[in-house]
């Protein structure tokens, strides 16, 4: 992988995430030194965008927490039907986890390629991320289908409702992420590494990694604890 | 509001208890609340007729008094400041730089904190002493009543007497009543305002409540959780009678011509109906309450198409 030598000057501000260089403060008349108390005027655009997206991710985590809390309440409400211990297939879950964690890794690699402004490697990284994401979804859909085929559908018990909802919610987020991924791949291809597209790629990366974190929590709370019950 | 002169005579046996008649209630609350109590026509929560109601009401008035001790000076001060410091009052001092005072800060934080500490004690003790499931001790044996909230009527089963009633609760006065409550369908709340606390009734669960009517009388009862179109009709009367009268009534029901309540009859009763007139069942299947609360009997059906069904009133047998 080659790192491009000459970085265009307009990108410098975006890469100076910790504002170690003076000069491009605030944007509209701000001071040159960040004080940590926001006294330097409005923060640069990429900081604002990333911060806002973090806040959004925090809110999404709270939404997932609500589903987790419901699952904690309903995990034993099997209404005489199957529980996690009999249903869950650890191997399948392990493959799903592998696929998703690997996809996070490849997403990170694509971010490195973006930093180096390599279109080809960015696209390849994103593509592999997408393929792994699709693999994750396929495994999950097959798991759902096998449960339903055995009569363990969400209408059967509160436990199953909660299981399908929390895992399905995560799956929906992955699906939306893949849609976003495809859109980003198209955008980068057509428009190149413009500042606003770089910001969006940053947000996408945050989102994809956050999904990974949620999966770790989900995998622990739903599958591991469920298997041990 | 017109007072019944007979109420000014306290029955001797009630002397040892915390009963409050309309006349005496003002003595236990600050005088300025007295007009409110008189205006209340001596009904509802401010005219309790049982130990739970008395205790609940007392705590309510006490917390009101505690709060008024702060609120009234605050409001008076606010209005005085608002009036005195109006711009047209040239006698008032203008203090344009008075925006901080350490002493005042300590006071304005301390006053609410102290009140809350005190109130916290009332809350903690009260929540435990008056928990609805806490039994009432009495020299009289408690009566058990199983309550099923239906759409849109109340079913009262007397497991020890083997009878049941709809929308009518007859109990002996001066006797603790132990209620076990569940719902046939949606959430409801069982509430007799003059006797005290209310409690949720939910399908698949059993909640517990203890109440007692100190004196004979008729007490209004209702549901305090909206449950659908027939909700307004979901009230009943609680008749507190003497022990002897209660036994007479029970025997009368057992030997009467009321229908029997079995599982089939219950399924019929569980269909939606409104404004059901009170009636009695001369016998009842004693497994019914447990079956309902554990869902051996399914929850009641809902409406057919969004409109509620017509009245269901089974005809007496025989």
């Amino acid at each position, binding site marked *: 992988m080659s790192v491009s030598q000459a970085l265009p000057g307009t990108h410098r501000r975006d890469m100076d995430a910790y504002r170690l260089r003076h000069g491009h403060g605030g944007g509209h008349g701000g001071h040159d030194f960040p004080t940590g108390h926001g006294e330097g005027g409005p923060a640069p655009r990429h900081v604002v965008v990333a911060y806002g997206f973090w806040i959004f991710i925090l809110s999404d985590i709270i939404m997932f927490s*609500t589903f987790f809390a419901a699952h904690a*309440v309903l995990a034993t*409400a099997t209404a005489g039907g199957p529980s996690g211990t009999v249903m869950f297939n650890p191997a399948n879950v392990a493959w799903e986890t592998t696929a998703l964690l690997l996809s996070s890794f490849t997403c990170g690699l694509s971010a490195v390629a973006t930093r180096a402004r390599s279109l080809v490697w960015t696209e390849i990284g994103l593509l592999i991320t997408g393929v792994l994401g699709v693999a994750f979804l396929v495994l999950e859909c097959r798991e759902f289908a096998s449960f339903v085929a055995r009569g363990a559908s969400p209408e059967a018990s509160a436990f199953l409702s909660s299981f399908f909802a929390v895992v399905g919610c995560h799956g929906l987020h992955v699906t939306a992420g893949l849609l976003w991924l495809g859109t980003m791949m198209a955008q980068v291809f057509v428009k190149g590494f413009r500042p606003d597209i770089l910001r969006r790629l940053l947000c996408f990366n945050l989102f994809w990694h956050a999904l990974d974190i949620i999966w770790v929590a989900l995998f622990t709370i739903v599958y591991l604890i469920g298997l041990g019950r | 509001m017109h007072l019944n002169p007979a109420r000014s005579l306290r029955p001797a046996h009630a002397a040892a208890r915390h009963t409050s008649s309309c006349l005496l209630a003002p003595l236990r609350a600050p005088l300025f609340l007295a007009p409110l109590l008189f205006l209340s026509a001596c009904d509802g929560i401010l005219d309790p007729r049982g130990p739970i109601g008395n205790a609940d009401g007392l705590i309510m008035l006490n917390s009101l008094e505690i709060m008024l001790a702060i609120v009234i000076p605050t409001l008076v001060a606010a209005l005085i400041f608002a009036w005195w410091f109006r711009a047209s009052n040239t006698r008032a001092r203008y203090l344009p730089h008075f925006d901080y005072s350490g002493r005042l800060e300590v006071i304005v934080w301390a006053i609410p904190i102290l009140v809350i500490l005190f109130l916290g004690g009332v*809350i*903690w003790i009260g929540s435990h002493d008056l928990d609805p499931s806490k039994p009432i001790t009495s020299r009289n044996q408690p009566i058990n009543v199983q309550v099923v909230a239906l759409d849109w009527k109340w079913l009262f089963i007397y497991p020890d007497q083997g009878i049941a009633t709809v929308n009518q609760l007859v109990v002996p006065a001066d006797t603790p009543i132990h209620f076990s409550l569940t719902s046939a369908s949606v959430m409801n709340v069982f509430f007799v305002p003059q006797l005290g606390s209310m*409690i949720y009734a939910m399908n698949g669960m059993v909640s517990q409540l203890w109440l007692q009517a100190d004196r004979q009388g008729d007490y209004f009862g209702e549901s305090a959780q*909206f449950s659908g179109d027939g909700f307004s009709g979901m009230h009943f009367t609680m008749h507190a009678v003497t022990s002897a009268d209660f036994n007479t009534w029970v025997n009368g029901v057992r030997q009467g011509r009321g229908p029997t309540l079995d599982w089939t009859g219950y399924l019929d009763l569980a269909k939606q109906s409104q404004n059901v007139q009170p009636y009695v069942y001369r016998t009842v299947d004693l497994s019914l309450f447990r079956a309902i609360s554990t*869902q051996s009997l399914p929850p009641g059906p809902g409406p057919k198409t969004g409109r509620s069904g017509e009245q269901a009133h089974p005809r007496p047998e025989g």
Partner: protein
Amino acid sequence: MLGKLTWQAIPFDQPIPLVAGGVVFLILVAVVIWIIVKGHLPYLWNEWITSVDHKRIGVMYMLLSLVMLLRGFIDGLMMRSQQALAFRAPGYLPPEHYDQIFSAHGTIMIFFGAMPMVIGLMNFVVPLQLGVRDVAFPTLNSTSFWLTATGALLVNVSLVVGEFARTGWLPYPPLSEATYTPGVGVDYYVWALQISGVGTLLTGVNFVTTILKMRAPGMSYLRMPVFCWTALASNLLIVAAFPVLTATLAMLALDRYLGFHFFTDTAGGNQMMFVNLIWAWGHPEVYILVLPAFGVFSEVIPTFSGKPLFGYRSMVAATLFICIVSFTVWLHHFFTMGAGGDVNGVFGIATSIIAVGTGVKIYNWMFTMYGGRIRYTTPMLWSVGFIVTFVIGGMTGVMLAVPPADFELHNSLFLVAHFHNVIIGGVVFGGFAGLTYWFPKAFGFRLHEGWGKASFWFTFIGFYATFVPLYVAGLLGMTRRLQEYDVASWQPWVLAAGVGVLVTLVGAVCQVTQLVVSILHRDELRDETGDPWDGRSLEWSTASPPPAFNYAVLPNVQGEEPYWEIKRRAIETQQLAAEPDYKPIELPRNSPTGFITAFFATITGFALIWQIWWMVVVGLVAAYLVFVVFAWRDVTEYEIPASEVAAIDRARRTARQQWLDTHARVGEQV
């Protein structure tokens, strides 16, 4: 083809909603025709509908709020009149209809009346007070507004197409499950709130980011106006609480649509979990509403007392204290569900603890007035009215926080009177205070004082006339949501409340009249300088209305109350600060994204309600495409040349200089 939708959805057999719907429809058509014929459509489209300017969006939120407050108030009038007539009589509203009305009343008032009111005020004021040009994400801001409008639209459409929920404003299961509510009412509720909830959540993200990351140079946290602190706390609560609502309503929707068992009676569903989850959102929600109102009073009272806010730091501390503790009290909404003495005791104590924060604020406002020279303009009247009313309402709240008292007062009219006491006394009074206070900044002319004072007095007296009888009725044992009753001792109080609400109606009429009269007489009420009240915070340094860029040059903030300092210096030196070095300013372009996204959200919502699945897919795909089109833009900003910036700002400086020339002495007020 059209799912569950048939002609029977339209209530041809019910005159009241039919006539109401018909009247509203005719009014809307007339307004639209007038707009088109008069040629206002391009102006509306370019300047308002596609605007991403926080000031315009704030005004639109306020407009939505006022219209919805009126609709909710009409529902309230119907409820009071029905109860006044319904002593051992059926009244004029059968249960199926009455139940929808009280459910719509609560839903509309909270979600589409009060929320837009506080969000509208925050939208308009916060960037101006922070000394910046706009919020962090302007197009997202526009989308938030239009999604809220979508929710309001869906709820109102339910009046004439189908029905609304008949469960109360919080749809407790099992009543709200498909078994017991098979109709579309709860579905209208769910999707209207899910859609507008997305909008609200995005507002929360937007404002938290703006307040924490975008302030004028020199404005550290402890130099922010208290309104911005309360806006921050309120938006943090939005970010933390609204996801809970989204998840909970999603669970209810899964139950209703796909037969899941989150909250059903059977198969292990847990109805108590709904109550817990919904109130884990619901309690922070009321603080989301009231904290900005507290912020309004923290601006209004210092301004009209002529002194700084007393105890700035403890106000900030109290605000953050309330923000955090508001998440620890939710169980007090269902003490009677039988959790036991320990649990009830803990939550009762937590609830009374939160009263400490509010008490501190009340005292700080009082000591702001102390030593002041108070001018009783309409906003100040609302503020004093608030102090009196909110303290009483808070007191009844602390009474309800004591579980044994709540065991008798839960769900009674005492409870209803309490929460109206705090919401009307806090949020509505604060909203009207803020409306009257910032109206000249938004439109360049003040609201008519006389009609404002009339509106205050009638609303204030009307509130007590309506709700004090309801407190009494609650103490007499009357529970809420009764369509008919037969307890004689309740009747006089219900009748009294029915009369009292007519006094409030006069207040509402005065409020509308105030708007109309002010617009007609706007030239006499003109705000020439931009500082009609002798204000203390930065927004009063701009012209009225401010230019699109707010500030030609971002102000350099030295202390609290920066504008007050600027004014003092100008008066003492008898000159304005030196003219700044004007530069071109880039602003975000307007965009139809918000409006069009909301359009497709409406279609998707309607289709989900009536289970028209192909339309759902179309709506979702179209919404995604709108997003892609927006993301594909190459030109996102437009530039205002330095010369134009200079011209606009010089006009402002001229007006200020003229004011200076005629007011030579320190301390002289406008």
